[in-house]
């Protein structure tokens, strides 16, 4: 088990934020950082996934492991995430259908695009396996499957040159913005909520920065120098978020996606804002860690088990939404939903580590 570190800490932080933001309308939503900037926890999550790939594909001495091993490792992880997505989707649909039956309320079936599944089960079940049918709020894992699926390409190019990997990724990103490339949804018209062709740039950026960070301390020097720029960007983000000022997609010049703030395409403004957040908050962990030991322990444990915690978080947030719906909400219910969520996520992480420990001790015995 890894010791607490900044990566796991921030990943745990992103997981809790995503959980709270996935119970829309709840009283704690306005206290999450997503409300005070133009990028949010999804960016943090994907960037850290890229950074972790960098760590996972290099040995203890910091040198890259054999390329074949990295490819198999990423393939195994892709399968794992794909399996999690299928399980979570099935449970979510069952929870939605079950609540509709139990509460005798047809409206619940319309939740999060689930209506399409119950109307066209034949097409939708294929779409579910193909990841082209997604429920609202259940669209990060499909993105993650595709990103991990293409990660070997960037990791292999990165063995030759990290700069080349970043250039390749950046070109795909820019082309997707200019030509509005995205993967299609099916059944039902439209595209993916998270465009993998755009979002891959953040994963590769995380991977490449981790590589540079390992090789020299130039990155750390520069991030310290750019700290004020990060602060300025964060403040600008707060102003834009609070005032609700954003570009009008029908007024900006072509190519439109270079100028708007759209989450689907991780538009440049969002990317830039995220980099600002990164610069401004990079030093925070070292300051916080000695002061809030228990919190660091909790969040890093979540971060170490991010897939299980994220999956459980999506299920818990759906249940939280149903509870709010049925009871009519209110502060008491929100406190209950949020605290059960926080405990539930913590339990999930603890349980996964307990299971791993007991398996390995049995194997040794």
């Amino acid at each position, binding site marked *: 088990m890894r010791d607490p570190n900044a990566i796991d800490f921030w990943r745990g932080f992103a997981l809790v934020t995503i959980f709270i933001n996935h119970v*829309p309308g709840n009283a704690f*939503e306005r206290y999450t950082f997503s409300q005070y900037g133009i990028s949010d926890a999804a960016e943090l999550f994907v960037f850290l996934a890229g950074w972790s790939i960098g760590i996972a594909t290099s040995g203890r001495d910091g040198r890259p492991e054999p390329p074949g091993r990295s490819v198999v490792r990423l393939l195994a992880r892709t399968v794992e995430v794909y399996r999690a997505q299928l399980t979570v989707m099935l449970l979510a649909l069952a929870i939605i259908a079950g609540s509709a039956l139990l509460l005798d309320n047809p409206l619940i079936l*319309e939740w999060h695009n689930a*209506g399409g599944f119950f109307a066209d089960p034949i097409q939708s079940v294929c779409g579910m396996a193909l990841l082209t049918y997604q429920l609202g709020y259940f669209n990060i894992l499909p993105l993650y499957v595709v990103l991990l699926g293409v990660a070997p390409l960037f990791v292999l190019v990165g063995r030759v040159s990290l700069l080349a990997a970043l250039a390749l990724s950046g070109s795909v990103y820019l082309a997707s913005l200019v030509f509005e490339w995205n993967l299609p949804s099916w059944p039902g018209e439209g595209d993916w909520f998270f465009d993998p062709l755009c979002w891959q740039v953040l994963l590769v950026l995380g991977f490449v920065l981790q590589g540079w960070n390992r090789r020299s301390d130039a990155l750390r020097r520069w991030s310290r120098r750019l700290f004020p720029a990060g602060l300025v960007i964060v403040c600008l983000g707060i102003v834009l978020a609070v005032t609700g000022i*954003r570009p009008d997609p029908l007024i900006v010049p072509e190519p439109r996606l270079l100028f708007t703030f759209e989450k689907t395409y991780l538009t440049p403004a969002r990317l*830039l804002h995220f980099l600002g957040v990164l610069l401004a908050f990079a030093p925070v962990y070292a300051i916080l860690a000695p002061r809030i030991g228990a919190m660091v322990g909790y969040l890093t444990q979540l971060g170490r088990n991010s897939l299980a915690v994220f999956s459980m978080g999506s299920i818990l947030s759906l249940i939280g939404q149903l509870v709010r719906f049925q009871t009519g909400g209110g502060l008491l219910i929100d406190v209950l939903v949020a605290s059960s969520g926080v405990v539930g996520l913590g339990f999930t992480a603890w349980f996964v580590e307990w299971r791993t420990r007991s398996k390995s001790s049995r194997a040794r015995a």
Partner: protein
Amino acid sequence: MDPGSDGMSLSQECRVPGAQLYTVAKLPAVRAAMDENRPLKLLAIGGSAAPGASASYPAKLEAALEHTLPKTDVVIDHRGLPGEIASGAAERLRTMVAEAEPDLVIWQVGTHDAIARVDADAFASALSEAVAWIRSHGIDVVLVDPIYTASMAADVDYNRIVDAVRTVAGQQQVPLVRRYEALHYLSSRSDKGEGHMLGRQFRLNDLGLRCMAEHVALTIATSLMRTESGTNPKADPGAPPLTVPQRAPG
């Protein structure tokens, strides 16, 4: 509206008195497209998907519109919009409108916010801003309020959301399909209650969807009769642009 005139009638099973079916308002952009003999580009936005087979609502709507407006070629883009208007979905709508650049947006709205227990005032102000934004770009809007179902009839929050859609439609002067009232009326007319509309698995069944498509088409046709030719859709005093045009930083 006299449901007897040609092409403007509802089928027997879907018949609802006009007062309980719609409020009308002008549709200058649709009128302009028809005057120029262009195909009419519609963006139909469902609750999540449309209630019912995702493939069949747009098809039924297209059929109903081409029946009601026989000389017009109608092209429908259909999108689901999961999420709450009061938090985030309104932004996604702007993206969809910018991508489709339609003449008319037919927007089924309110169900998600009702389910998420969003405050009705927050919902109304977000919806109002979104409608004003669409209209500020010379695009017409028809709002469709949430469905009626007996299980929600006594729910105060749900009714407040239905009322909020009506209020916004009135303030922004856009046509409204009063789906809640219409389904309420139709289910009270039958001994089977809402069952014959919602189906055994309580989803809007084939009939429910067809009626909805007909109701939308009739609302549009009636609104068009109030819209004189030559009105410039851009020059609408009721809808100042609410968003400050702003270039992204960097």
